[in-house]
């Protein structure tokens, strides 16, 4: 199977996602320039972290106008698995592929550290290989990761089990103390109603090798491989 990693001019985790998919997981991967209009026949699309277009306006606000985004939308509409990581999550929100918005971290400052995250849903293509309520340690590195949605939207997201990841402690307990940025309901990642588009602030692609501090993120990419294989087998 093949991963496509979209490269916006200010992407800075594009090579990390590419490396994790190709070198660590061992699947095909391609870097796709944001001005391209074709996803090169990829089975999974990753929108990587970074500062897509400098983000002086709002994170991800301009990226949704990149030519490649039409192809990403069409791919998602067909049910193709799309993973937005950090800035990629912000781009998915701005592009309307996921509900809600990001605002500045509650403690204002950039937050960079390894955090525990609890898996809430295992019926998405990026959590299919996870155990229910499994705790994953992955780095966060963002200034605007404070997830916000109006009360109705939030209720809807919860009702439809769209919260895929929540910030927790190492034991999997969710509380304000384990929330690094003030996100509503400790939301670290969500999916769309169809469950094929997932966005999260922590970086699974930076947590795929124990030598770098954690290999817990590997299961997210492995999930994509597993769920596509089971689709193909059906």
């Amino acid at each position, binding site marked *: 199977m093949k991963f496509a990693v979209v490269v916006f001019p200010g992407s800075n985790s594009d090579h*990390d996602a590419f490396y994790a998919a190709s070198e660590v997981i061992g699947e095909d991967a391609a870097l796709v320039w944001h001005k391209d209009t074709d996803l090169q026949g990829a089975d999974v699309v990753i929108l990587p972290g970074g*500062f897509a277009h400098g983000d002086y306006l709002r994170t991800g606000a301009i990226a949704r106008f990149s030519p490649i985004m039409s192809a990403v939308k069409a791919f998602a509409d067909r049910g193709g698995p799309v993973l937005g990581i950090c800035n990629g999550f912000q781009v998915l929100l701005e592009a309307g592929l996921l509900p809600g918005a990001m605002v500045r971290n509650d403690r204002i400052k950039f937050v960079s*550290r390894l955090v525990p995250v609890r898996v809430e849903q295992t019926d998405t293509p990026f959590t299919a290989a996870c155990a229910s309520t499994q705790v994953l340690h992955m780095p966060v590195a963002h200034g605007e990761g404070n997830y916000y949605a109006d009360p109705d939207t939030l209720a809807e997201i919860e009702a439809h089990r769209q919260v895929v990841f929540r910030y927790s402690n190492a034991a999997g307990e969710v509380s304000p103390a384990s929330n690094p940025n003030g996100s509503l309901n400790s939301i670290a990642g969500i999916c769309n109603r169809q469950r094929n588009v997932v966005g999260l602030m922590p970086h699974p692609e930076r947590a795929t090798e124990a030598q770098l501090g954690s290999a817990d993120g590997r299961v997210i990419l492995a999930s994509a491989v597993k769920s596509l294989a089971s689709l193909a087998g059906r």
Partner: protein
Amino acid sequence: MERHGIKPDEYERILELMGREPNLLELGLFSVMWSEHCSYKSSRVHLKTLPTTGPRVVQGPGENAGAVDIGNGLCAVFKIESHNHPSFIEPYQGAATGVGGIIRDIFTMGARPIALLNALRFGSLDAPLARRIFEGVVAGVGGYGNSIGIPTVGGEIVFDEMYSGNPLVNVLCLGISRIDGIVKGAAKGAGNPVFYVGAKTGRDGIHGATMASAEFDETSAEKRPAVQVGDPFMEKLLMEACLEVMKTGAVLGIQDMGAAGLSCATSEMGSRGGLGMTIDVMHVPQRETGMTPYEIMLSESQERMLLVVEKGREHEVTAVFEKWDLHAVQVGEVVEGSRLKILERGVLVADVPNRALTDEAPVYRRPMQEPSWQKAVQRLSLGDLGAPPSAQSAFDRLLTVPTIASKRWAYGQYDHSVGTNTIAQPGMSAAVVRVKGTATGLAVSVDGNGRFCYLDPYRGAMLAVAEAARNVACAGGEPIGGTNNLNFGNPERPEIMWQLGEAVRGIGEACRALGIPITGGNVSLYNETEGRAIFPTPVLGVVGLLEDATKTTTRAFKRAGAAVVLLGDNLGELGGSEYLATLHGKVAGQPPTLDLSREAAIQKLIVKLIRDGLVESAHDCSEGGLALTLAECTFDSGGIGVAVDLPEVRLKPDTTLGDTAADVASGFSRTFDVNATLFGESASRIVVSASGAQLEAVVAAAKAAGVMATVIGQTGGDRIQLSVGGTRVVDTAIADAEHVWATCIETQMGRR
């Protein structure tokens, strides 16, 4: 002339080199290029004495950055640079553009930057101004590096009253390149076009280099317009585009426009290549209307590059830049001869021999004079100190010193995981990054101790080299190259010049003994406000090679029941220590002694022990001595405690902390023996832990290397228990000590 910072004798020299009176633009070129910042006119005679060669050196000083061979056809490209003055005036932008500048130096060489480190100095956090500068600098360092996606992986931060009017912001960038992919900043081939690419030129930063070469006074805040504003997104585009365009082979030379902007890039590329350059400022993209040639040539707008392209291959270059939405425009060409000619719409407005601006800039052998107070501050009798505090209260107090405390508050704002190369997490002494595509890794550390250098600049500088190299070795890296940042006061004062001369002499001697070539660096002088200079502060950056990146370790204990071994001699030297400064309010005495052959032996030993997998943790002893070193080994370990019994150092009752005085200390107390044992900062010491049969192997290897190895205790429990000569003198729960240590700076920064 005075506004241009040019002295009357320098003007005479300009007349001689020009053969006529310079016009205003030409005077401006000389002003920035002959500034201390660009010309190194005061330090050059000293810098020449540093060792710069070695079997691994690919590029020594003189280029945008140095480079050393790391095997597999690759080289590590690195340099350290300061942005002290701008960071005082405008902390966020000053620090951010400092990061941007050093990143450009690295990718200009054709290397992809993979790590940033910084050495920072601020005034005491008790002062609101110091807190504001600290906050702004940390945000600026993070703001730039995080955006562009280069991890900030380590560094050091020191707080001292002496930096309250003049903070230091030194940034080191490390990149990786193929050895055959190195591109230099020299013009080649008359007739080849010269291209400008990047941000447009504005009026920002005009005379920034000149500002950085003057002392501060109460009007310095008015110089804020001379600080540039950074755009990390533009730099990201430039970096990717430049790295891509260099792969085409159509770029013959490239240089970033940093200090002195276009003036520096054009004259340096010309003189390095032994050729001339002609440019027309009309073609230079401008942000504002009505800019004069003077403003265009002297602007220090950020994120701009100058390229010499092979004639006939221009389209290959412009195509890459267009992909990244950057416009490369031809502004001139390389010409025969050696003159820099500047045109405005075809009319010649400046015509200067380019070497007159660069190689022929004045070189001063400035007078040097040991300060009259130097010997006095080195003398300190224990009897003058009053009653010493108990070891427990000294230990508790030192944990709350911001210089010793965890710097989590700062590095928690730095993206250190981007790039997926960071092996050692920040806060673990040396940074360790792997080199993708190989089994190797690189350990990097930046160190300097201004207090030691104030007491003895020669020995203090040697200690800085030794500590940086030792930190790298404690992560398993064999030191292979160094870069230095010399931060001093006004060199026109003979005492400051003496400090600089002595420090460079010390760096040279230590680097030669430890086999570390200096491949580049930076000099920052005039670090004074209202006539008060900072501590002389040479900062050393050392890069070490790990042949196997998996063979590394950190300071933290890994398991209970391991033996704790002290490598090296505990001499109980308190001179210049944090203990003396914090508990007795004195910066005095002789800094610790340094035997370079012993230092070399212990470094070789620790690299071997880590490579052979014999030790589980390794931590260099520095500020706070053995006691704080042992405490730090328990921090971030998951609560693995330690109990040791240290042989007591016996200070003679007539000991003074100076070396020659023999006055008998009155009121001498045995507590000094205990405190010297625990808090003395003797060099060449490392604390390691080892289990089972490996302990014997460690002791045997140390013996073979001629290094003293003393088993001082064991890991285990949840307390830090330190005894001296059989008597328990410190006993603290790790949880309490670690909480104080980890949150100290956060608490200070929470004050309003």
